[in-house]
């Protein structure tokens, strides 16, 4: 797999699994899960400093050489997202941003109008923008044309574990995109991640499916292998679906009985 890197904004990643850090019950459990996942790029959120807090997710990432990808989770408007991205750049020394602009708490679905607005501003400001978007091929194309470094359509709502509700849309997005397509949100289990890759996605981003699993580290390893499996299957060229059967044992040469 070493010769099949994911290239994002010119950077090469051997792992096609991008992890989020949210939802883990503790930093030690998170750490074991991150290591088991093999991820090289991991999201963090930006929040107000809390004087009581000790230990930082950044230390964990740093200890394992995992690149940090700040997000704008929790932002409802382009203005909030832009400021959050700028703070993240200042705090973390990276101009990469996972751009999230959500519309409501119930679904956490992205707001396409605010998202496009924010993406435009951030690209103008020199950011490498990785936008979390719905699965609409039209919005994905708009984001790509603005100059986003990837498009990251959802499979289903964040944390829902409903998998890829509309593979047809993901397929249309993959088909049209010149930038990497990262399936972001909704993954529930390993076969969902494999399916995303088989549809031609270049990577998978997930958090809850691992961090909230009964055994996060074990699920992280499952996801690592599932993403590899799906990628290999995509490259290997699956057999066509057939309505009827096709024997794999030879028809000729069977013994005659009776």
């Amino acid at each position: 797999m070493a010769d099949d890197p994911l290239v994002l904004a010119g950077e090469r990643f051997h792992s096609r699994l991008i992890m989020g850090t949210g939802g883990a019950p503790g930093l030690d459990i998170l750490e074991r899960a991150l290591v088991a996942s093999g991820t090289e790029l991991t999201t963090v959120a930006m929040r107000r400093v809390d004087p009581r807090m000790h230990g930082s997710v950044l230390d964990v990432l740093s200890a394992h050489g995992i690149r940090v990808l700040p997000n704008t989770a929790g932002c409802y408007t382009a203005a909030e997202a832009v400021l959050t991205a700028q703070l993240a750049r200042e705090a973390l020394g990276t101009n990469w941003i996972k751009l999230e602009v959500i519309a409501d708490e119930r679904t956490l679905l992205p707001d396409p109008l605010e998202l496009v607005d924010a993406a435009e501003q951030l690209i103008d400001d020199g950011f490498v923008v990785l936008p979390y978007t719905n699965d609409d091929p039209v919005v994905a194309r708009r984001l790509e044309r603005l100059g986003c470094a990837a498009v990251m359509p959802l499979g289903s709502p964040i944390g829902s574990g409903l998998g890829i509700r509309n593979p047809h849309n993901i397929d249309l997005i993959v088909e049209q995109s010149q930038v990497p397509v990262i399936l972001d949100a909704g993954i529930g289990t390993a076969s969902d991640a494999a399916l995303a890759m088989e549809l031609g996605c270049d990577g998978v981003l997930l958090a809850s499916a691992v961090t909230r699993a009964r055994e996060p580290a074990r699920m992280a390893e499952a996801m690592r292998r599932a993403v590899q499996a799906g990628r290999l299957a995509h490259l290997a060229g699956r057999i066509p679906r057939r309505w009827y059967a096709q024997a794999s044992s030879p028809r000729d040469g069977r013994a005659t009985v009776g």
Partner: protein
Amino acid sequence: MADDPVSVTVNGEPRQVAMSATIADLVAAMSTAGSGIAVAVNDEVVPRGRWPSRRLHDRDRVEILTAVQGG
């Protein structure tokens, strides 16, 4: 008078700070982390290099953020 307190909002909480206080002072009071922190005043990022010189004014809204688990 030189050090009359000014009323600011820090991370959503009202707070009195000395007129001579800088962003650097404020950050030091809020966190012991030497890095990974960013500050915005009134919706504008204040780069770390300007923290020692940047004073606070009455009604300034200060946001001091860091990275946490998320996403």
